[in-house]
């Protein structure tokens, strides 16, 4: 008897429907074959399914069993086909009878089986849920430990299962399991904080201001200074001042984390803006994504959030260069044997750089131990094309302890993250309004092209003169010229000014490139 069970394959963030066809032949030599470009993990489903069925006190038919994963030319990977195959075998061998009202073509079975018949957590459940919703399916049957991921999807019955025997009892009506309630998804999204509050950071006013400008206009930021001056702390406070994720954005981020198997079981949706800080030993595949069946890399995991590169010159040169495409397009394309995958990767880059290899060049108290050659070499390791995509440069100086106490008395200008975030949100609103009629998806000042700058910047004559004066004095490239206008535009937005005034431009000049 032949049974057809619908399932899915996740290729990157795309979900494709596939059929799991199971045939238990009435004649022929006993055997168990899986065809349809199955990977090693799928191949091994044979042993798992067989043992799991036997250990669930059911009968494994001693006949010729053929499983086909259709379409046959699409590579399939992962252990999630264990459950549909097991159900197929049980149905085809007549051990499981579905009630009349049960519509097999509108249900999905998805999950990895353990040898004892229990179900193990499985990646990509959210994508399955979203796909089921899209094709108006009625229910999905998934491992209980991963079911929470799909609970945010509306109009779908998500049934979380602990074992194969639980599913059999449920389907035969002997012991019905209630689907997960949908309520969890309505959790407030805007209650998230960064790891540090801006008001906790003593001194570094200019760096904090730069963070606010970066958050408002989506500008990439480079911090430059000796170790221990708070570069990491500053960047970790950034998620707390970025505008909260909208529900759509949150779903977008969650999809990426679901495919990567990085969801934690206490939250169905990622509600925090991601903050990723990969170590400099990371491989290119780890950074942009990869593997024979490509998984998202750090750039995609930082999607709509922050990618923080501490000690950027320590990263391999090629690795940093590989950031160019995502920084330009907001997506990353990975081509591998098993296919061509596109992941979103629209992030704000925050890079931290020491002034020299030992870190103490120009330190007021400690002596630098590097030779001139080492320093020059270190500076050459900083990629030019990446610097070209950075709008804000800020020097993070040493905060001398005797001055810290002065800071704490001077509370007047200690902005909290909450206040900063309000400023950021209103500046972003102005930008959204500005690019309303633009056909391209452009939300922030940093995304402006040179032609947009001319169209939208609204630069006052005096401010332009100031910029020209500065460009003579500091010898700017044409690119820096436009970069400064973009930053000045964001500063003007923060001050709620429709035109860029000379003062805004003068402040922007503080963040000009200095490496």
């Amino acid at each position, binding site marked *: 008897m032949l049974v057809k069970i619908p399932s899915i394959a996740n290729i990157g963030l795309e979900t494709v429907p596939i059929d799991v066809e199971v045939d238990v032949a009435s004649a022929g030599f006993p055997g168990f074959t899986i065809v349809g470009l199955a990977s090693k993990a799928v191949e091994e489903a044979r042993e798992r399914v067989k043992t799991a069925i036997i250990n669930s006190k059911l009968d494994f038919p001693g006949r010729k069993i053929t499983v086909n994963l259709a379409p046959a030319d699409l590579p399939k990977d992962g252990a999630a086909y264990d459950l549909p195959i097991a159900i197929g075998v049980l149905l085809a061998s007549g051990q499981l009878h579905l009630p009349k009202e049960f519509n097999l073509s509108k249900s999905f079975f998805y999950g990895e089986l353990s040898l004892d018949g229990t179900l193990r957590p499985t990646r990509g459940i959210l994508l399955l849920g979203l796909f089921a919703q899209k094709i108006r399916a009625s229910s999905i049957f998934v491992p209980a430990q991963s079911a929470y991921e799909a609970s945010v999807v509306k109009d779908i019955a998500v049934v979380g299962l602990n074992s194969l025997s639980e599913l059999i009892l449920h389907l035969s009506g002997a012991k019905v399991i209630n689907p997960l309630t949908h309520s969890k998804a309505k959790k407030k999204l805007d209650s998230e904080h960064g790891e540090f509050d801006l008001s906790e950071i003593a*001194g*570094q*006013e*200019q760096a*904090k*201001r730069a963070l606010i400008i970066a958050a408002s206009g989506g500008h990439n930021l480079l911090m430059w*200074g000796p170790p221990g001056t708070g570069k990491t702390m500053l960047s970790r406070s950034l998620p707390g001042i970025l505008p909260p994720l909208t529900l759509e954005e949150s779903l977008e981020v969650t999809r990426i984390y679901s495919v990567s198997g990085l969801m934690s079981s206490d939250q169905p949706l990622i509600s925090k803006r991601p903050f990723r800080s990969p170590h400099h030993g990371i491989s290119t595949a780890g950074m942009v994504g990869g593997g024979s069946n490509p998984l998202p890399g750090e750039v995609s995991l930082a999607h709509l959030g922050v990618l923080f590169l501490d000690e950027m010159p320590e990263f391999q040169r090629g690795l940093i260069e590989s950031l160019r495409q995502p920084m330009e397009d907001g997506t990353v394309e990975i081509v591998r044997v098993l296919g061509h995958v596109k992941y979103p990767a629209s992030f704000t880059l925050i890079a931290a750089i020491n002034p020299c290899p030992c870190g103490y060049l*120009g330190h007021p108290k400690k*002596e*630098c131990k590097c030779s*001139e050659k080492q320093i*020059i070499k270190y500076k050459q390791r900083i990629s030019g094309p990446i610097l070209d995509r950075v709008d804000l440069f800020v*020097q993070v*100086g040493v*905060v001398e302890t005797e*001055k810290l106490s*002065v*800071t704490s008395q*001077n509370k*007047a*200008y200690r902005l909290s993250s909450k206040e900063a975030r309000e400023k950021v949100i209103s500046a972003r609103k102005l930008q959204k309004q500005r690019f309303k009629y633009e056909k391209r998806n452009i939300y922030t000042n940093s995304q402006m092209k040179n032609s947009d700058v001319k169209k939208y910047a609204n630069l006052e004559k005096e401010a332009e003169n*100031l910029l020209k*004066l*500065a460009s003579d*004095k500091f010898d700017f490239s044409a690119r820096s010229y436009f970069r400064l206008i973009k930053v000045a535009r964001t*500063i003007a937005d923060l001050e709620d000014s429709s035109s860029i005034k000379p*003062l*805004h431009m*003068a*402040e922007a*000049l*503080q963040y000009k490139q200095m490496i």
Partner: protein
Amino acid sequence: MEYQEIDNWEKVSELKKLLDLSTKPKHLYYIGNLDPQIFKHCAAIVGSRKMTSYGQTVVEKMAPRLISQNITIVSGFMYGVDQYAHRVCVESGGKTIAVFGWGINTKLTGNDLKLAKDIIASGGLLLSEWEEQKASHWTFPVRNRIVAALSDAVYVVEAALHSGSLITARLALKLKKELFAVPGPITSRTSFGTNKLIADGKAKVWLGQDAINILQSVIDDPMLQILDNEALSADELALKLNVPISKIGAKLSMFLLSGQLNEKGGKYYINYVS
């Protein structure tokens, strides 16, 4: 680069001062356009290989003043103060002589080559007493005697306690040249040597700008008044004046553009020169 020997240098009247040396150079090789006038009035600016931003500022002040008096700047072409002195001299349109601590036939690379080309292009000279000679720990002190002998005055910008610059200073005293040392912070390693020269009464103190000139510069803004006492970063200024950083930043940019301030390593200095 093509090099040549100065034929019979002992006969060149402008080079008579080298005859005072107890061990005179046997040969003198050079690269550049030789005009003996360049040797007429010379001053040496020497100092530490590890130049601090203070040393850098001092060189920027010192070199243009010497150049404006038509003095050739002599130095040792070592990175740090030496090379920076050459660099500032070239950029300010002055003439400079670089005395190598190695043979003239040595290939230069990278920044060294660029600086050497700039020195020649601006009418300066590269000089060495050797044709083929590897740089070694003894060649530098030997080279220093030529630097000292060529110059009428020697300015030590920054020097640690056992620095090669102090060798030049000692030779300068021996040759009865005028010796100046730039005082520095007593906590700075690279000023121990210069401060000691002053404390021991061996060198004259170089104070840069005449005191009257400093007093005369117009300082009306509170920010400039603070910066007149000590160089500060934007953050520190915001704290002292209790003004938001955005305003401070804008103002600093304006002063930078008008030339009233200079920025070095994140700190802002009053620009007295302009």
